[in-house]
């Protein structure tokens, strides 16, 4: 067996080795299995895996190797071990959303994003821990216990895609899938020191993603570097007849633009980066502010023009998000009634069965959000809460259109207001919701955004966020790639 060091090898580099024949898919899978054991991915340690089947992964690797031999070539992710958030349907494998309600549920179909990654040679080696039904910012709201940050096990990995971010950060897999509703890929990416992407709403099919808030949800990749994240985004993007909100816009090569500029000393010449003042409040952690300022200076040195901009309705994003998302969740989660999915309580009447199943199956945060969502949609409160929130959401969207309409190519902000906090440190629900304060705006407006490591404060990773206009992923990756290359090792110091 070839010993592989996933903490150094990127997905693209590993896929090249596998396609070239110097490493086999089985080697890659075996290395991932060994890393998972060494890092403690299981419930008795980091608790970042909810499901794994080593033998199944090895059989898939063998089958892939035979297919590659017949075809004489491998896909762009040939033999890459991949971890998948447990709210993304994987054919024949469990999909529990980290909820007791879906314990034992085996998905009879597969998410389009998974199918596309598998077609390129990726191998699903694990389903990862998450906040139940993606409701949370710390992966503490899992029915299977909290996940831990591999960089400091006393701290959370962020959430809700905390298990996926931690699996990449721990070097177990070079690539993972998560999902976003209000920052659930970018925030854990920032907390774990990896790259996380939320594509434009409609860019990636939601088919097979268990619905939380359908007007906000998007699947996104987590990777160790920008190039891997761009490749994975490119592969999973594109129209899908199974998702009527997926866009038919052509997906170009996200990598071509930045790779063609890789040798340029000023790869961002001609670009304008906006820095919104609302994302740098007085109370922002000074260490995070300082690292953002260093990144802004770096962007200037790469040729970008940097100007201050305003997104005046940013402060309203959390109130809007925590009305819209629970409202949609209360509707989407109505399907979990004990009839069609997962567990069913034994009761004497149909109504009791519904209530008993849901009450025993959902955890406290999911229950709270369903109640909140039902309340803001109920007669007498709909106009004051839900309708008003949707109108303010329109103002937030207009803020983005205004700045991008004035020649701004991308925005640069911190991803999170703090670094990873200790497990159990935040008990007030609203304080936890504020973790999403810099990320939820992009979901509400539907624009693409990503987080990449820009340094560390007291040893903990800090994420810088790049936000682009609708369907301008290429521009976003161009800036991220240049910044990552310029920061080099400083991004992880």
């Amino acid at each position, binding site marked *: 067996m070839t010993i592989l060091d996933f903490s150094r090898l990127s997905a693209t580099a590993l896929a090249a080795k596998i396609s070239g024949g110097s490493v086999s898919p089985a080697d890659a899978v075996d290395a991932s299995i060994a890393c998972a054991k060494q890092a403690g991915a299981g419930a008795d340690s980091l608790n970042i895996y909810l499901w794994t089947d080593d033998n199944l992964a090895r059989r898939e690797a063998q089958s892939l190797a035979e297919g590659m031999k017949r075809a004489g070539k491998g896909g762009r992710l040939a033999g890459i071990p991949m971890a998948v958030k447990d709210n993304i349907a994987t*054919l024949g494998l469990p999909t529990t959303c980290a909820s007791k309600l879906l314990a034992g549920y085996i998905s*009879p*179909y*597969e998410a389009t994003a998974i199918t596309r990654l598998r077609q390129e040679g990726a191998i699903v080696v694990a389903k990862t821990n998450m906040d139940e039904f993606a409701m949370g910012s710390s992966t503490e709201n899992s029915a299977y216990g909290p996940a831990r940050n591999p960089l400091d096990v006393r701290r959370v990995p962020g959430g809700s895609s905390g298990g996926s971010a931690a699996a990449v950060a721990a070097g177990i897999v070079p690539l993972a899938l998560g999902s976003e509703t209000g920052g659930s890929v970018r925030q854990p990416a920032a907390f774990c020191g990896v790259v996380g992407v939320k594509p434009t*709403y*409609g860019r990636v099919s939601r088919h097979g993603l268990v619905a939380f808030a359908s*007007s906000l949800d998007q699947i996104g990749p987590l990777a160790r570097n920008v190039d891997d994240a761009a490749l994975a985004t490119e592969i999973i993007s594109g129209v899908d*007849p199974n998702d*009527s*909100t997926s*866009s*038919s*816009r052509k997906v170009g090569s996200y990598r071509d633009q930045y790779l063609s500029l890789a040798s340029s000393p000023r790869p961002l010449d001609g670009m304008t980066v906006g820095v919104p003042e609302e994302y740098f409040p007085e109370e922002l952690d000074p260490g995070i502010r300082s690292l953002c300022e260093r990144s802004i200076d770096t962007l200037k040195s790469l040729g970008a023009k940097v100007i201050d901009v305003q997104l005046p*309705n940013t*402060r*309203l994003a*959390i*109130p*809007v998000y*925590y*009305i819209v998302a629970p409202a949609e969740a*209360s509707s989407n989660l109505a399907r979990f009634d004990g*009839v069609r999915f997962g567990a*069913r309580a*034994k*009761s*004497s009447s*149909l*109504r009791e069965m519904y*209530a008993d199943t*849901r*009450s025993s199956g*959902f955890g406290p945060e999911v*229950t*709270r959000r*369903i*109640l*909140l969502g*039902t*309340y803001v949609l*109920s007669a007498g409160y709909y106009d*004051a*809460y839900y309708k*008003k*929130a949707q*109108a*303010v*959401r*329109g*103002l937030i*969207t*207009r803020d983005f259109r205004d700045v991008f309409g004035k020649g701004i190519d991308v925005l640069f902000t911190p991803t999170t207001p703090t670094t990873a906090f200790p497990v159990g440190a935040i008990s*007030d*629900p*609203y304080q936890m919701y504020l973790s999403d304060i810099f990320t939820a705006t992009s979901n509400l*407006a*539907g*624009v693409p955004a990503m987080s990449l490591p820009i340094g560390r404060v007291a040893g903990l990773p800090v994420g810088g966020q790049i936000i682009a206009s*609708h*369907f301008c992923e290429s521009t976003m990756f161009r800036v991220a790639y240049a910044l990552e290359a310029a920061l080099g090792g400083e991004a992880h110091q």
Partner: protein
Amino acid sequence: MAVTQDDVRQVAELARLGVDPARLEPLVAELNGILQHMEVLSNVDTTAIEGATLINQPIESTPLRSDSDGPLKMMSPKESFAPSMKDGFFIVPRLATHEDATDSAP
């Protein structure tokens, strides 16, 4: 618009959730604690925003497609989705009288 225990009971009924009586008062406090932060929205002037025109985010509208396509192709036969089938229908446990469930489902 403070939430009361009666509101929580009513909303729980609408949401088909049973709420432990001991959780009622904490839930009232939690929901009020959250909703007080939402009050800021009532002071925002939204007259410039017309209905839902800006809500669905992508620049393009949701595409309309022909109704002519047939049912989507399934990845595996529908028989694989349920414990058993009879005359083309899924056989599932009876809902209201679970004691009889074993009579009708495996």
